[in-house]
């Protein structure tokens, strides 16, 4: 049963600490997306990779957020230093080759981040 996995599922940390979230896309998928979901802002796209190359990270605060794909099976989203306003659920999604033009995105279960 292929699915996107994310770790950790929950993270509570203190302001100023570094947070790293990990995502394993579905094997064979070549697009990876990071989203942030809050009650106020809804679902926001933070970053988007195709074939491990970052295509768009315009939705991501560059001063503290960074997203990478060290290899095809791992995507990371890092926040350093974290702030209380970063508290949200962070979702990773992957998509099969051919782009999302006619394909769906497959979402992971999310990482619920709380920054105190």
């Amino acid at each position, binding site marked *: 049963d292929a699915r996107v996995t994310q770790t950790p599922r929950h993270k509570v940390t203190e302001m100023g600490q570094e947070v790293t979230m990990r995502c394993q896309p579905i094997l064979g998928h070549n697009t990876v997306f990071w989203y942030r979901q809050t009650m106020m802002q809804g679902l926001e*796209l933070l970053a988007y990779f195709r074939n491990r190359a970052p295509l768009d990270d315009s939705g991501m605060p560059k001063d503290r957020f960074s997203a990478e794909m060290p290899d095809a099976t791992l995507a990371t989203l890092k926040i350093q230093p974290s702030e209380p306003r970063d508290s949200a659920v962070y*979702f990773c*999604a992957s998509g099969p080759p051919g782009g*999302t*033009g006619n394909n*769906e995105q497959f979402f992971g*279960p*999310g990482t619920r981040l709380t920054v105190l």
Partner: protein
Amino acid sequence: SQQGEEDPQALSIQEGENATMNCSYKTSINNLQWYRQNSGRGLVHLILIRSNEREKHSGRLRVTLDTSKKSSSLLITASRAADTASYFCALLDNTDKLIFGTGTRLQVFP
């Protein structure tokens, strides 16, 4: 903004009734997708409709698309308590990104 605006924001119905959710948008699209999110979970793809299609069915789901009015609707027929969730429309823009709408929270009472 390309983001879809969904209407209503919340909907409560009884089991067996039909639920209709609407999505309006502002610019041209390649396709429009509907996703479902159960509380505390990730989003799950329900159905995709291309810009040259007007209607699509999948089980109890029916999606329509009116590109002249820049709107889409999702109809769930014979609703069940298990359909309780949030439903999002997502627009594919010309950079291959999906932009999600604000969502409709559906509550189906047994």
